[in-house]
């Protein structure tokens, strides 16, 4: 199972987890990213390029399933306006073995940060509104995966 979605609706982590649980796979690794209320943030707005975001998530999901032996994979990104503590992104990777589930999950969340066509705009309690700048650190973490042979990650 490969499930990819970009949605304005809230992400139902429990329901997504149930789909992996039903498979009875030996190992499931997950990553949940939530909106942080740092610095008085009251709204995070995520803009996306619909065609490219969907394509980007799909490519990423297929890259992970080529690289590791995965039984099920879920990649869901929320877009639009969100409040602090809302779930922005969910990655779920299931495999018979833990090392593959863990490595795929980490790969997917690192790559998501740079490969997907999304832009964040922050609104603060004092009225400030600012588009988030891309962080150099994210590009370093994502590039790591290009330098490490697939075999040493499993």
């Amino acid at each position, binding site marked *: 199972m490969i499930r990819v979605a970009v949605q304005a609706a809230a992400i139902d982590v429990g329901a997504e987890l149930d789909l992996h649980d039903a498979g009875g796979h030996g190992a499931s690794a997950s990553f949940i990213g939530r909106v942080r209320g740092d610095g008085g943030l009251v709204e995070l707005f995520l803009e996306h390029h619909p065609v*490219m975001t969907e394509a980007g998530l799909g490519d990423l999901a297929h890259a992970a399933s080529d690289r590791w032996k995965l039984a099920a994979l879920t990649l869901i*990104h929320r877009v639009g306006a969100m409040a602090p503590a809302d779930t922005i992104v969910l990655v779920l990777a299931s495999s018979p073995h833990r090392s593959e589930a863990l490595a795929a999950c980490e790969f997917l969340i690192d790559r998501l940060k*740079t490969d997907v*066509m*999304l*832009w964040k705009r922050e609104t603060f309690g004092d009225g400030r509104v600012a*588009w988030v700048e*891309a*962080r150099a650190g994210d590009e370093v973490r994502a590039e790591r995966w290009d330098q490490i042979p697939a075999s040493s990650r499993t």
Partner: protein
Amino acid sequence: MALTISYFAWVRERMGVAEEVVELPVEVADLTALLAWLAARDARGALAFAEPQRIRVAIDGVMMRPGAPLAGAREVALFPPVTGG
């Protein structure tokens, strides 16, 4: 040449539109020339494209390097570096 241009994030905000169809002069043949043409066209463009090195470009859904030619393009998307995830 008629070309659809879409804008995202602060580029969209500064341009005041999400998408427009423009009629390009024949000498605007690559992405570098397109950004310069938009910057010279009006105040909105001057604001949005004052720093062309901050702009990323996709042609028909594919990320392109800054100087790529426009020949054959149907839709050009202009936006800041992504901050997704």
